[in-house]
């Protein structure tokens, strides 16, 4: 079956880290030809540091996260500090549909690749600029990475235990990055559709922090109605109890469970042999349970602590109560529903071998997304891309390599990290 773009759309991805590269990767899933450009001086920092292993181990080819979000791309290198490098990049701009960048504000202009310059070369080009905090405003130069973006969006301020004394925690997944990338794909798809109609490209600006703030709209609105700063609720619900995470037998095994109604609470208590507790007036009715939640959690913790997690979950779910294991990564991958739908895909990647990677989320029956093509090694496709796309001869490519405008070995570079 054909992919959506069937090789007819070309994306030039000069972004680094997660957000920008994810946008490029999702275009690769749709069958676009995606060229990942890395600077010969500053390769994508998500490849990690050269100091992590001896050179023969090729440490920068062993980054799990880089190898995930750059799947399906062709990798080239260019010295972006050199006139030749920029000139070659502009020739790639001329034959591309989309340019993805997430440099700090101003960098793209200093490289001579601001929207005015690239649209003069190629008016059909759609360019997306994905700075962390925007390209203007008094604090646009704030250095942003996943978890600092998450903080400035207000997410971290809400992440803490209900009794944690104000300590805040970073989420496990640098949420600002994938959320920025997903918005980027959406915006580019909108612009592609518009270009079909108008024949013209455009510039899209996406501040990653602005993409994440809507996710805490509820708390922002709550403040406007109550005048109070919403507190971190930890594992608790604002109205219902029980609603928490409880330890089971074994090493670091936990389950999450939640009751919305009195019936669910009685069923839960029955399933856990807690009939005596269920009859306790401190826990009769939603408001009583909420008012006595510490005592309720203590009783539940006592009842659950000695139980096998699987048995306990089966009992609770049979009683019609919402519950799940608190899954570490291997359990997520072994989840029966995830397995049944074959969500993860196996990919054999040079240097690291075969691993499972998250598949494409949208299941599109007649144009399935392709998430099973490995990420490129540094400069892996220099020859192919420069010859095919720009018509360079072997001699020209060898000369570029000799003078260091392109290359595939990190030894000749200053490390970015």
């Amino acid at each position, binding site marked *: 079956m054909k992919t959506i773009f*069937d090789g007819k759309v070309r994306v030039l991805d000069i972004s680094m880290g997660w957000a920008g590269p994810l946008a490029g990767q999702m275009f690769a899933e*749709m069958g676009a030809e995606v060229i990942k450009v890395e600077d010969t001086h500053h390769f994508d*920092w998500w490849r990690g*540091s050269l100091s992590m292993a001896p050179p023969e181990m090729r440490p920068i080819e062993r980054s799990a*996260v880089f*190898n*995930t979000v750059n799947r399906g791309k062709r990798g080239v290198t260019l010295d972006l500090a050199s006139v030749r490098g920029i000139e070659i990049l502009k020739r790639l701009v001329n034959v591309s549909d989309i340019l993805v960048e997430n440099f700090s504000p101003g960098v793209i202009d200093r490289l001579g690749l601001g929207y005015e310059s690239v649209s003069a070369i190629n008016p059909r080009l759609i360019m997306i600029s994905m700075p962390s*905090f925007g390209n203007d405003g*008094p*604090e646009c130069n*704030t*250095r942003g990475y996943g*978890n*600092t973006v998450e*903080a*400035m969006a*207000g*997410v*971290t301020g*809400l*992440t*803490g*235990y209900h009794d944690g004394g*104000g*300590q805040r925690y*970073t*989420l*496990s*997944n640098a949420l600002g990055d994938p*959320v920025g990338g997903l918005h980027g794909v*959406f915006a580019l798809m909108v*612009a592609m559709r*518009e270009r079909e109609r108008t024949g013209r490209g455009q510039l899209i600006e996406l501040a990653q922090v602005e993409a994440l*703030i*809507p*996710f805490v*709209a509820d708390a922002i*609105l*709550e403040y406007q*109605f*109550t005048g109070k700063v919403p507190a971190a609720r930890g*594992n608790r619900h604002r109205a219902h109890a029980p*609603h*928490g*995470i409880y330890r089971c037998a074994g090493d*670091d095994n936990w389950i999450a469970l939640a009751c919305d109604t009195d019936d669910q609470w009685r069923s839960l208590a029955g399933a856990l042999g807690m009939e005596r507790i269920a009859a306790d007036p401190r826990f009769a009715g939603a408001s009583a349970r909420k008012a006595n939640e510490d005592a309720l959690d203590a009783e539940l913790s006592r009842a659950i602590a000695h139980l096998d997690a699987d048995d306990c979950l089966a009992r609770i779910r049979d009683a019609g109560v919402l519950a799940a294991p*608190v*899954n*570490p*990564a291997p359990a*997520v991958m072994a*989840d029966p*529903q995830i397995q*049944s739908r074959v*969500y993860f895909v196996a990919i054999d990647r040079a240097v690291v071998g075969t691993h499972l990677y998250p598949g494409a989320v*949208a*299941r*599109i029956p007649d144009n399935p997304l392709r998430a099973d093509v490995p990420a490129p090694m540094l400069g892996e496709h220099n020859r192919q891309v420069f010859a095919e796309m720009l018509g360079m001869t072997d001699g020209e490519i060898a000369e570029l390599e000799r003078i260091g405008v392109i290359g595939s070995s990190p030894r000749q570079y200053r*490390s970015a*990290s």
Partner: protein
Amino acid sequence: MRYRALSDVRVVDLTHFIAGSYATKLLADMGADVIKVEPPWGEGGRKLGPHRAGNRDRGALFAFLNLNKRGVTLNLKHDRGRELAAGLLDGADLLVENFAPGTLAALGLAPDEMIAKFPRLSIVSISNFGQDGPERDGKLNDLVLFARGGWTFPVGEPDREPLTPPDSLAQYVGALYGAVAAMQALAARDLGLGHGQHIDVSILEATVATMIYETVTFQYTGIVRRREGKRYAVGPFLIVTLNCKDGYAGLHCVTDKQFEGLCDLMGRRELASDPRFNTALNRMLNNNALLEIVEAFFIGRERNWLYREGQRRAIPLVPIPSVVEVLEWEQTKARNYFETIDDPVLGTIRVPGTPLRLTSHRGEASRPAPQLGEHNREIFGGRLGLSDSAIDALEKAGTI
């Protein structure tokens, strides 16, 4: 804020609560003609978010999630209700829905039949677990979804229970995948096939999709990340939320340069060449010692001083703001990010604006979320050609 980029796209919106409603909001913000179809008693999400005293039927989160849409009511259990729904689907580009799998078919609006009948229509189904698999009919809430999808396990104190993320973050991620899927359906139709498709988006899979730090890294390293308290992890970096004199600050120190900057900030430049910390690898091996030094420095400083001085040295170091500070942040103000909505019931509310800034169109003010059945006459009369008396009769019969 609303753009007109998708003004030729017609969307029938059968969504409710968050994941569905935010997906169609993204389309509506880009100018798509989104008609939200609710049962005559309103979708469950109408009550989401804070309320004004005396009116529990319109929550402020609903008012945000449904900006820029028009609203009609239809009882899909009535034959006439289904006919009218089919009438709306005729000529529509997209149907977006987040019912439990199988619900559309049970209502007589089976996706395959609808697409066969209206070949240009695509259907995007957003559901908890996907349209198939042993648990396709399962229920979820945020706590359980985060736990199952892997977000919760690595967060919190090592000697305490894992800590769930706040609010409904993963529902919004599901919504984003749904909105992208809607655009993918349009692209597939217009660039190739000429006909629509039924796209299946699982919120659980969308949740897992963002967990690449865990799922892929653990296969590479064999190490399952566990709770490290205020530290994101023990690694060749220092990613940590630190207690300051007047609150908390977030530090993301990864590269050699950032570490040198941090040493300079602390007035301890010698640490950069200290054999315990002079490489990323050594900073991982001696992470506890490094954390102690940094903690001791931060606790005596104010977070805004740390922010200013840290950023001056190009260190990703930020104060951790409350949502109130986000709302009042000079940066969001300078960029006119928050939008003021004059809601017919809730009055003036400030809501997050659209993060996508297209240069092809000038942004316009958002339209408030529809009141229940607000556009019945406009849509059933204007688009489907029903007379006023026919609409009155439908109202009387409880169909609309």
